[in-house]
């Protein structure tokens, strides 16, 4: 009973380094740190859902074994980002002796790029002063937001967005364990929605599994409120061929009958446009129109009017370009 209620993102979070998919080179290096029971300070960079936190936790489990929870501490810098965190919480943890057989502890600082530069400055000597008892793993989206003196103290590992194959591999594994049938079009749908983010992929799978044990593409698109890529293609085709009425009718179906959010439609149009083989000048102009509509929506403009105006601009751009 309780099993069914757990969130799969947590349930299937890899426990061992070897189970992390799509980051083979990084995992290989981390495993040799485990073998040697030694660790430099690490800086993990990469977008969301690519395995940074998972890698840090798995690393701690394997290095410390049973005593891992006593010697590992996770802090999210975006919750508490001032200099006092470094001077109090972090130092407190770093200077106490490791427990059990461990020779050092690990402090995992998630979203370290949210730390103010002051706090980062305070962190730098702490990293060295307590290097005997504590190693730091920092994670961030952009290493350029981490001050140089800290980068200089860390080995930097860049986690890349996961390739569709890696995501499909993990999804198949989970489907087997959950006894689900996931068709090839469903796998395509999941990798399309995930965009390299494993969390999104697993979330979509769990959502679709609520509908049925046999999952096909349409369930995935439905549960995630996403249009099918073909529908987006059709929308673009209609608008770019100058058929405003046709495009408007399709848009209205997607938004009002299917309940797809305008932002999501813009997002999908953006991805489809990038991939589309067409005149580059026109493409740049269309992307600009998308951006403008996105911006206006974010400012609170009316979504029906803005989305229809967007289609109108598309039609006009093509007419002017020709």
């Amino acid at each position, binding site marked *: 009973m309780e099993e069914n209620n757990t969130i799969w993102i947590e349930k299937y979070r890899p426990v061992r380094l070897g189970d992390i998919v799509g980051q083979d080179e990084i995992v290989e*290096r981390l495993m*040799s*740190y485990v*073998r*040697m029971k*030694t660790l*430099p*300070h*690490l800086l993990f*960079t990469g977008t969301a859902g690519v395995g940074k936190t998972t890698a840090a936790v798995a690393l701690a489990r394997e290095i410390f074994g049973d005593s891992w929870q006593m010697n590992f501490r996770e802090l999210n810098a975006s919750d508490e980002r001032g*200099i*006092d965190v*470094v*001077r109090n919480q972090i*130092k407190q943890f770093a200077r106490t002796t490791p427990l059990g057989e461990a020779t050092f502890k690990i402090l995992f600082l998630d979203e370290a790029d949210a730390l103010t530069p*002051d706090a980062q*400055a*305070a*962190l*730098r*000597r*702490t990293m*060295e*002063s307590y*290097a*005997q008892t504590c*190693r730091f793993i920092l994670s961030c989206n*952009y*290493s*350029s*937001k981490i001050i*140089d*003196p800290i*980068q*200089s*103290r*860390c*080995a*930097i*590992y*860049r986690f*890349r*967005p996961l390739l569709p194959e890696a995501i499909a591999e993990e999804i198949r594994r989970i489907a087997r364990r959950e006894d689900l049938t996931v068709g090839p079009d469903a796998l395509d749908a999941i990798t399309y929605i995930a965009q390299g983010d494993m969390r999104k992929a697993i979330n979509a799978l769990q959502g679709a599994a609520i509908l049925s044990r046999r999952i096909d593409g349409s369930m995935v698109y439905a549960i995630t409120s996403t249009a099918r890529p073909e529908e987006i293609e059709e929308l673009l085709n209609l608008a770019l061929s100058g058929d405003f009425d046709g495009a408007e009718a399709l848009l209205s179906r997607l938004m009002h009958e299917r309940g797809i959010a305008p*932002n999501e439609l813009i*997002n999908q149009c*953006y991805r489809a446009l*990038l*991939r589309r083989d067409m005149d*580059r*000048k026109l*493409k*740049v102009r269309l*992307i*600009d129109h*998308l*951006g403008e509509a*996105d*911006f206006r929506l*974010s*400012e609170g403009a009316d979504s029906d009017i803005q989305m229809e105006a967007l289609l109108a601009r598309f039609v006009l751009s093509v007419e002017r370009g020709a």
Partner: protein
Amino acid sequence: MDWGEKYRPMHLQDIVGNTTVIRQMAAWAKDWTRQSRPLLLYGKPGIGKTSSAYALARDMGWEAIELNASDQRTAAVIERVAGAGSTTASLTGASRKLIILDEADNLQGTADRGGARAILECIKESRQPMILIANDLYGIPPEIRARCDPLQFRAITAHSIVPRLKSICASEQIACEDTAIRQIADSAEGDMRSAVNMLFASSVGREHLGDSQVQTARKDERISIFTLISALAVRKGDEDLLRLSRELDDTPETIEQWIEGNLTLIVPPENIRGAYRHLSRADEYLGYTYRRQYHTLWRYATALMLLGVADESGGRGIHARIMPPARWQKMAGAKRQKAIRSSVLARVAGMMHIPSATLHREYLSTITLLVESDPAGFAGELMLDADQLNFFLSDRSKSQSVIQRVTKAAKEREKEKEAFEKKEKAEKARVRRAAESPQKKDNLPDINEIALTKEAPDTDPSEKKPPAKSQSTLFDGF
């Protein structure tokens, strides 16, 4: 153990690079007297500033006391730790204590309230050698800077990093290919600590390190931004361009600046106008992104600047060297100028009791004329350094010579004053001893003598410190 710490140089002679500076440090320590000014070591991260300070202490047989930004540095804390170190003799047998104030350019506003003043007091009162360390010389409050002798540490050449890495490989018994070592040394960009860390990260658990196994994630951005810039000028797919930009670890505005800096290489002259239109539109999206904190808009900025400029390039390729944006160099210079300007204005404004903006707008030309008529007098009065005086004079060599004269005169005055005070103090103590306890020995050690005078403040009104502190400061902090 972390190799950064394990292979931290123990002695001055082990420090790689910066030989002249190291010699100057050794000479400073050898000839150190209470009149010596503190050293101020500054330069990029990872090039040996902190290591040199510790190595110096070890070579001299001095005890080292460090205070860095991870400690709270309010006036009280600095006085307790460094103050005790700086005014009392060491009890652990070491002849002297070296006070190392690391990250002196990182005194934080409220958390370190009064820290700058405390450092200043410390420098004035110190009876022990003191070294301040900073990345940015101009991050140090000017009144502190004026009391130190600055020594600049420079980046270490890849050529000098190589042998050090090789010797580490030898002690760790790792067979490392020369090309791999070279690759690490190059990508460290003069940062020795980063090089050692990269070597450590790449070679743990290996007996052999080839160049394909090198973990130089650190600074390959530079390599990729070049790749991205050249990709803009060849016929490359739209998605490939965006993928390259995503793999780069740079924010869109950095990419934007690189593109702008190299625009004349990417785009033929007749298309510059069109390229700027795209860049400027992209820039608007960046503005929206930050203003509204709506990060989805980033992608439009990236797409417009990449695809738009690529379109204008006509795919003719790049046939000259891609350079970092020229404005970065200008900005670095301008930043320094600005720091100097605002420090001078603040100083004069404080003295004249008017806001610095008003001063800048209305009184600056008058004051400039006044300073020109008596540079030495004003420099002494306002405690200006050569750069600051040059703000008024716009004559570098003249400013420097004026400042040299002023500091020399000030030093002599201070010496005279100290000699006079010492004499006076000794006189008073002698008189008092004679009056209070005629049987006491005459050759009391210096340190007790000071403590004694502090304990009796009413007999010595010139003494600033409250009496309660005198005896306890001798022992706390140990």
